[in-house]
């Protein structure tokens, strides 16, 4: 897939190379185990546009957490990236950098300044025996040796202020902050060195809906200010439909559908996407009985041949049990389902 391939009807290019901040191509991650290795991510391909929020949604075992650790090179054995490229395109116009091949030293210089991560549990992401402000100072001064401690503390207070934490809390320890404040502090920390890409792994799962709304409103405001792109991973499709520009739906380690939030909600093409959308009862619309998706997600160690969703699929056909559908572009979206095979659509 090349960058300029996606064309709109009017002939103008929607994406060009400089619009893309991250280009993931054919990424596969395996976990070595006693038997055959388990593939947690298979052939994951997507492009992240500059300043975009890309949602990644999936259930447990769908490979979304594996994808995050692979993208940020935070994976630990037994996880191994077996194939694929993750090309990061810096704003400066320098050539793309393949994160998969990058030496640890070069990778370190990219962390925080170009690429940062917000983890699910803020308590685990912050050092419990260091003042919150000190952790900002640490990050800031590692990446800008010329910065004085005083300047770094001032910057720490400013960054905390951006997420609504008053300056006098900079000298607090993490346990002295509420859960919501801690999570906002990790978001401010992730933005400390102005990265172009922030990966967020269920950043609001541990907080309440009111705090969730508050945190996400701040993320959106900061994104307007600093113009970074976000990969936002969660199991909560209802939230992504409101938050993300585009959404990738993962099932059994593969992206099964990738579309704009609006298209995904209005016209889901994959039966799994449709089932997931209809698993969220409405808050205001008239209630009707909903069924969810029967069955359980597959065991990655014993995937069925053909489509992994076939055993649960309401629209299953014969070919689904034999041939694995691949993610195929359909206009400005992609789907991996035999229902949209050329000869059937025609």
């Amino acid at each position, binding site marked *: 897939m090349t960058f300029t391939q996606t064309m709109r009807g009017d002939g103008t290019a929607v994406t060009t190379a400089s619009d893309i901040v991250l280009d993931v191509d054919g990424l596969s991650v395996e976990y070595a185990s006693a038997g055959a290795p388990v593939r947690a991510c298979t052939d994951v391909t997507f492009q992240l546009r500059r300043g975009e929020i890309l949602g990644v949604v999936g259930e447990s075992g769908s490979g979304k957490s594996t994808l995050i650790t692979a993208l940020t090179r935070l994976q630990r054995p037994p996880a191994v990236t077996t194939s694929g490229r993750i090309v990061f395109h810096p704003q400066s116009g320098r050539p793309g950098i393949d994160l998969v091949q990058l030496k640890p030293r070069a990778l370190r210089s990219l962390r925080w300044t170009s690429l940062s991560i917000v983890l699910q549990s803020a308590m685990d992401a912050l050092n419990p025996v260091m003042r919150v402000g000190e952790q900002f100072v640490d990050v800031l001064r590692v990446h800008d040796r010329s910065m004085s401690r005083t300047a770094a503390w001032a910057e720490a207070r400013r960054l905390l202020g951006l997420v*609504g934490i008053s300056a006098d809390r900079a000298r607090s320890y993490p346990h002295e902050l509420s859960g919501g404040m801690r999570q906002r502090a990790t978001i401010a920390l992730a933005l400390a060195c102005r990265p172009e890409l922030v990966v967020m792994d269920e950043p609001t799962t541990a907080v309440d809906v009111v705090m969730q709304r508050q945190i996400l409103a701040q993320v*959106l*405001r900061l994104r307007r200010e600093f113009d970074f792109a976000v990969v936002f991973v969660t199991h909560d499709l209802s939230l992504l439909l409101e938050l993300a520009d585009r959404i990738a739906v993962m099932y059994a380690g593969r992206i099964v559908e990738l579309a704009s939030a609006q298209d995904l909600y209005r016209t889901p093409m994959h039966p799994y996407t449709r089932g997931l959308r209809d698993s969220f009862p409405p808050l205001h619309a008239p209630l009707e009985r909903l069924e969810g998706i029967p069955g359980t997600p597959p065991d990655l160690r014993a995937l069925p041949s053909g489509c992994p969703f076939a055993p649960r699929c309401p629209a299953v056909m014969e070919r689904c049990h034999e041939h694995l559908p691949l993610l195929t572009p359909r206009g400005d979206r992609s789907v991996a389902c035999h229902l949209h095979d050329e000869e059937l659509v025609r």
Partner: protein
Amino acid sequence: MNEPVLEAVDVAKHFAVANSVGDSSVVRAVEGASIRLEPGRITAVVGESGSGKTTLARLLARFYEPTSGQIRLDGVTVAGDGIRRSTVPKSYRKAVQLIFQDPFGSLNPLHRVRHNLERAVRLHHGRLGRTEVDRRMASLLERVSLTPASDYLDKFPHELSGGQRQRVVIARALAVEPRVLLGDEPISMLDVSIRLEMLNLLDKLRREDGLALLYITHDIASARYLCDDIVVMYAGQMVEAGPKDAVISDPQHPYTKLLVESSPDPHRTTATDRDDIFGAADELGEPPSLIDPPPGCRFHPRCPFAMEKCRTTPPPRAQLADGRWADCWLHDEGRADELTHATMTERITRKLTEEPR
């Protein structure tokens, strides 16, 4: 109104905590909470973490004895106010069962499903023959849609998926033939696609067996899907209650309104623009400490409607139509219609810009 099978009347639960230097203080986890559970009805308790909803469920299950107030089963006071019992009688356990949030932690991992179920059946039904125990276990698994039962009885918990485990937990609770089920966030740890099956199962139990159900959740949309009535808790107190659709579509307490507006609703018809949806929600404040809760109304530090008396005097309970009520001074002042005029996030933001801290 039907007779409640289980009832809490004005219960409070305080916990003593000590900090690292040994100073002790009191956490007021629940105060002044009253709830009635009727046969065949599902009541939802919604609120943020720390609002006291789990403590309320545990008070009703009698894991905790109330600090004050009473728990009544079939109209008979069984706990609180002068009654001091160190053990809870088996008859209470037989009537009231609790389903926990974490299906991974609530089944003994060393034993098969058969053992986990059989203990509950034998403990509560006396001497039963082998065939009768087997028959009962099979019918229990059937009721929670784990069929054929023989496929599941000899499995260990780790061999089951999260949804299947939660079904076993529910089957075990049903083994004693309870009249009340208390569900403490029973679906929040399950995958999204199987949550609905669990909600439909709870609904079936209510319809077929006339169980009284308490459904505790932070997910107001699932509460609306399953329950009949909603009780909203904030900072250890109940602030509003009533029929679900009335409470959600027309909140009569500012906190309920904030909660409803903050919940994601992909099916919303208005405001499809992201900045409209999240827009103003930048600074909504945080719930207060329960060690030293604010005087007056506990929501007043975050409330854009707060008046002078909200800061000093707890609001009276305003009784509204259809058995609804709300604890808010706006009703006393005749200003309740202001709740419908603008969204809470807009109001809170406006208030913050008008009077900078």
